[in-house]
């Protein structure tokens, strides 16, 4: 059957560039990663087939499970805390107050800052010896906070910095989402005697769900992949690997520790994981989102 009458080659020629790009930059490297994940690579490039050993050792490795656990907690915090704060601020800046536009811009502009710069800034502010915040906390509580040695402090620092860097973006989308909530629906709720709290949960929040679903996905991607730059600048995965999240561990194992095979196995597993998470999110969000007006 000819799907494109009179055009036998042209349609395929037109999609070729896209397919070529996808093949060269995504499919072929992925195939190589799968191939590599069944091998050990010597420091001079020789390959040795080891079967499933990389996968077996990965799931038996205390370091990997620790990294997995920390990544999950980190993502949950970035999404949960980050989106909650963003929504609160977005609600405040969409109230009828003087200078609302100014506040909106003031909160959003932080997104323009590169994660690297933000990372350097946060690490200097909390530097145990010369950082101003470390010093203020030290003189206020007597507790000297050192994210070079304290795994919990490092983890919280990276989480706080990540929430902060994503805040502008999240607020931006929530503000846009809130402005699209039809005022007459809220009025109807008020007339029916709903409190502000009830109006928010029954009208505003469901109407926002497409925005929320989108932001959850974007923040998941940030937590899993884009947090890399921040980690690399602030903690390099330390101390005691508390901030060595899955993506950073792949980089460290593959490039620093010269364990390409093991890193490939991790990246294949991360791919499967993200595919499942993405599918679940898209399924639930398209099902639950209220698109209809």
């Amino acid at each position, binding site marked *: 059957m000819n799907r494109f009458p009179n055009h036998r080659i042209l349609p395929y020629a037109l999609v070729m560039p896209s397919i070529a790009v996808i093949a060269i930059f995504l499919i072929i490297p992925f195939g190589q990663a799968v191939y590599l994940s069944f091998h*050990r690579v010597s*420091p001079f*490039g020789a390959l040795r087939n080891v079967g499933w050993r990389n996968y077996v050792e990965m799931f038996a490795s205390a370091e990997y499970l620790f990294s997995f656990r920390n990544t999950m907690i980190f993502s949950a915090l970035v999404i949960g805390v980050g989106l909650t704060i963003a929504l609160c601020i977005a609600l405040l800046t969409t109230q009828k107050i003087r200078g609302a536009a100014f506040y909106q811009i003031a909160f959003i502009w932080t997104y323009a800052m590169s994660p690297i710069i933000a990372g350097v800034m946060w690490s200097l502010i909390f*530097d145990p*010896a*010369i950082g101003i915040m470390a010093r203020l906390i030290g003189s206020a509580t007597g507790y000297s906070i*050192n994210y070079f*040695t304290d795994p919990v402090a490092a983890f919280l620092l990276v989480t706080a910095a990540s929430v902060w860097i994503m805040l502008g973006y999240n607020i931006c989308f929530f503000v846009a989402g809130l402005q699209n909530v039809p005022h007459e629906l809220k009025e109807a709720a008020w007339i029916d005697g709903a409190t502000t709290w009830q109006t928010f949960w029954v009208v505003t929040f469901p109407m926002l769900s497409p925005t929320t679903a989108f932001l959850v996905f974007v923040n998941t991607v940030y937590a899993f992949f884009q947090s890399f730059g921040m980690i690399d600048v602030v903690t390099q995965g330390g101390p005691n690997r508390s901030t060595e999240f899955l993506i950073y561990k792949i980089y460290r194992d593959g490039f*620093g*520790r010269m364990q390409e095979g093991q890193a490939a196995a991790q990246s294949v597993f991360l791919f499967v994981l993200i595919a499942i998470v993405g599918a679940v999110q898209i399924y639930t969000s398209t099902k639950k989102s209220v698109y209809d007006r």
Partner: protein
Amino acid sequence: MFQKRSKSILMAALVLVLALGGIATAQAPVTVEFWHSMTGSRLEVLNKVVADFNALDPTMQIEPILVGTYEECLTRFRAAYQARQEPGIVQIYEVGTQTMHDSGMIIPAYQIPERLGETWDFGQYIRPIVQYYSKDGNLWSWPFASSTAMIYYNADHLRAAGLDPNKPPTTWEEMYEYGKKLVEAGVVKHALSYGWPDWMFENALSLHDLEYANMGNGRLGRPTEVSWPNEFTDELLDIWAKMAKDNVWIYGGAEYNANAAFQSGEITFLMQSTSSLDGILKTVGDSFEVRTTFLPRLANPKYARGNSLIGGNSLYVSNRVSDAELKVIFEFFKYLSRTDVSVYWHKNTGYFPATNAAVKALMDEGWFTQSPNHLTAFLQILSGKTDTDASAGMRMGPFAQSREWVRTALEKIANGEDPKAALKYSAEQVNALLAEYNEFFE
């Protein structure tokens, strides 16, 4: 007639073009890439050295390329070699020594003059450097930026705490005592921090003539296990743990983070590579008096004297370079070993002047009396042992990972965990990595 003439003109033109082409090919510059990891103030110094070399002969050009940290540089070289994109010269840190020796990607340094039909006296380099990078008595990489570790201290702080700046601590026990006094006197919140904490651990072992790993510290064969934890490390780490608990020692990150604390007067003692000397002197300026001294030892007299370790980096040459490229590389290496260049490099970076002649020139011009801080590390390493495997420095394949595990243990100790358990756990991980590395040679 006309046709004939135009033909001859054409011929003449052709001859001319061919001749010019010939000249052009004869004089086409040979350019060799040089991958390195010199950042900060050292980058400018390196670029100046290379630019001066390039100005000497337009047909011999070196192109320096900064490719990231030492670790990244090693990884990228390996990847590039497999893709046939590697540079002619690559700068590799001391940690990569065993890996480079095992790689099969390089020409050992001692074979470079041989291949070009020339000779070169490797005896002109400072002994501990040659020792460190030699295998079976032959130098495998070209000495370039060698350093060792020492103590930097703030003499003004010692005076403020009523301590004698002419008597800095020589033992860890004294370090603890001094630190406590400084903290108690309110001069500083913390007294001591290290750069490269994992390397300081290695230095502590070698300074007491103790091996880091078996198989002659990895110099006689590929090691199968590390020597720690042992009696010595127990004793050492007990003091480190005590210092952490009493706010004497503050853990300052993996590489150069601790420098900032020292330069801003937040801490009194900094253990760091000599390569930071010029950066620190320049940044501190006149705000306080910077002095330097030898690394501390344990007071316990039962431990022998060894030496501090050579650190920094050396230069490796890819074994795929052509003879024309190798010629340029050799000329460049000879240039780096020139006395004036060695002197310039030393004065502006704090790295060792690599040749005996450069040391003499520096001494003759009074440099060491003018800037005694530049002499400290030198005296320390030249006055120490060089003839034992422990003092010559260790060698192992997964060295970078081993460092990371030592650092992990030190981070745990600094955070109040049990030193023995922390180090034991790290040792187990390193031993597993050693076994994995050795599998490649079965």
